[in-house]
């Protein structure tokens, strides 16, 4: 269980104030929370529930529904590899196996040193320069094994 962020209460007050009056504000709030701490600390659930006047179960249900929201912090770097069809047609499966082997982890796992989290993604809209990846939010195209090794070298350093 990650430690409770020290600035949780004050930042939550700001985040909730920023979204007050917005129609359907829960997803934007959760994105802001994840933007602040890199994950959604479980301690925000009752705070959000109280503010939006919904149950904790509802807030939790929303967090768990979406692939984007993490309940634990990720590694220092997040490598997302596209697993969808257009990338498969250009060897994405091979590149993904190479990545898992090179990092010694499977999908959704983080390397023991906390450097890299590996995640699957289904299409980045880069299907005409496949296989595609996203490294810490930056898009990369034509990711073959060599390009992947170069990417991993930058995030493992």
């Amino acid at each position: 269980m990650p430690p409770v962020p020290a600035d949780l209460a004050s930042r939550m007050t700001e985040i909730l104030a920023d979204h007050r009056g917005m129609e359907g504000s829960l997803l934007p709030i959760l994105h802001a929370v994840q933007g602040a701490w890199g994950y959604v600390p479980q301690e925000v659930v009752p705070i959000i529930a109280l503010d939006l006047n919904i149950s904790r179960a509802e807030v939790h249900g929303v967090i768990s529904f979406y692939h984007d929201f993490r309940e634990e912090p990720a590694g220092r770097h997040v490598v997302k590899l596209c697993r969808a069809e257009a990338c498969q047609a250009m060897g994405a499966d091979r590149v993904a196996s190479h990545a898992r082997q090179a990092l010694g982890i499977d999908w959704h796992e983080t390397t023991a040193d906390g450097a890299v989290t590996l995640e699957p993604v289904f299409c980045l809209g880069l299907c005409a320069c496949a296989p595609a990846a996203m490294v810490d939010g930056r898009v990369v195209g034509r990711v073959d094994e060599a390009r992947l090794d170069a990417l991993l070298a930058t995030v493992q350093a």
Partner: protein
Amino acid sequence: MKIYLPRDAAARALDADAIAAAILSEATRRGVAVDLVRNGSRGMVWLEPLAEVVTASGRIAFGPMTLADVPGLFGDLAQHPKALGLTDDLPWMKAQTRLTFARVGVIDPLSLDDYRAHGGLTGLRKAMSMTPAAVVEEVIASGLRGRGGAGFPTGIKWKTVAGAAADRKYIVCNADEGDSGTFADRMLMEGDPFTLIEGMIIAGLAVSATKGFVYLRSEYPDAIEVMTQAVHIARAAGILGPSVLGSGITFDMEIRTGAGAYVCGEETSLLNSLEGKRGVVRAKPPLPALQGFLGKPTVVNNVISLATIPAIFEMGAAFYKGFGLGRSLGTIPLQIAGNVARGGLFECAFGLTLHQIIDDIAGGTATGRPVKAVQVGGPLGAYFPRSKFDLPFGYEEYASADGLIGHAGVVVFDDSVDMLKQARFAMEFCAIESCGKCTPCRIGAVRGAETIDRIARGDVAAIPLLTDLCQTMKAGSLCALGGFTPYPVMSALTHFPDDFAPMREAAE
């Protein structure tokens, strides 16, 4: 000196930012003043990063650019090793009919002056001079059908919303674009965001909605950034807000970010997500047109449907309708992807065959091996073999071949593809992305993957089981996620039986 270099995500994924930085530092080194415009992509992704230098005779294209090619842009352009000639004269550009994408790659995406100079806001002004009912009639007359996949006539949808009495109505733009092989929405939003805003305003005035949302997938950070800035700019210029272009009509909008769920592209799931709920599918009826966002009448349209509206008003419904075939009218931005020599976006009238698209336009595979299969319409679309390559690109034409055009993504595979594996992936994807509300989709997809594993192990009896399961999913699923997953599965089985057979023969 004026140089264009795309800020489109595909160009950036191919190191356009490094090229841009090199252009600026080379210019500084030479003491040359350069106006570097980060435009959208022209859609020739195999040539990205594609630089264009403005000359007296027009824009000359250079690509794919590497760092070593940068200094040459400041020398004798005719001698540049990557010189391709005038962009507008390139075969890929000349063969297109760019109506929706007319400005993409041409203008500075966030310059309203550029936008206006290239016909921007003409459609909105035209629509504002008409009655709302006449606006709806014009859209009906254009023959425009939803480009998100289902192909429902856009004007008819608007008419339903226009006719619904309510204190509030909404325009929701579906920018969830989750289908593999598709990127038209992304390119449009990154390359010409004001067109989408203009289309949404026209939709708003047609149905008396004052508020719009763009539900944009989180996998598209570049598009989110451009759209967000475009909304601010449009608001500051009085295009959005309490009095659109001083007309007294109110329309404003927000950009909302999705959270990585494919099913949230389904319109009712999207509406739940927008309301801050789990993205589960709602049963229809009620139609979103009558009870949509927060229970109010809502137009839900795809990015391309909405972004085509300004062109329809600028050029007239009759002009738009002049393109296409049968009941598939106007133009369609094809997205050619996967294993192709020339991949990218190609807007043309409906009706091209796969043979024309893959062999002529895309130049065959990138690997140089023979094409074995093509999946049209995303992860819920059918796989076709070469024997179906004469099929004209149209909604009904594809439906009658047990396929769909979906969002017009065309994904090409060479002969190394194993179609049993593709069928299994379709089931696996459905299992991962199912919203969980209906059993045929949630459980069926898991069983489907298991059944295909049995076939892979040589169990002949599992083939009829798979066929039955597909029937159940097709007939019993609440939405097209479970309902259409049988398309890729059954097409793989039907058209490529050999990939499901060797183990079976071995077992016999």
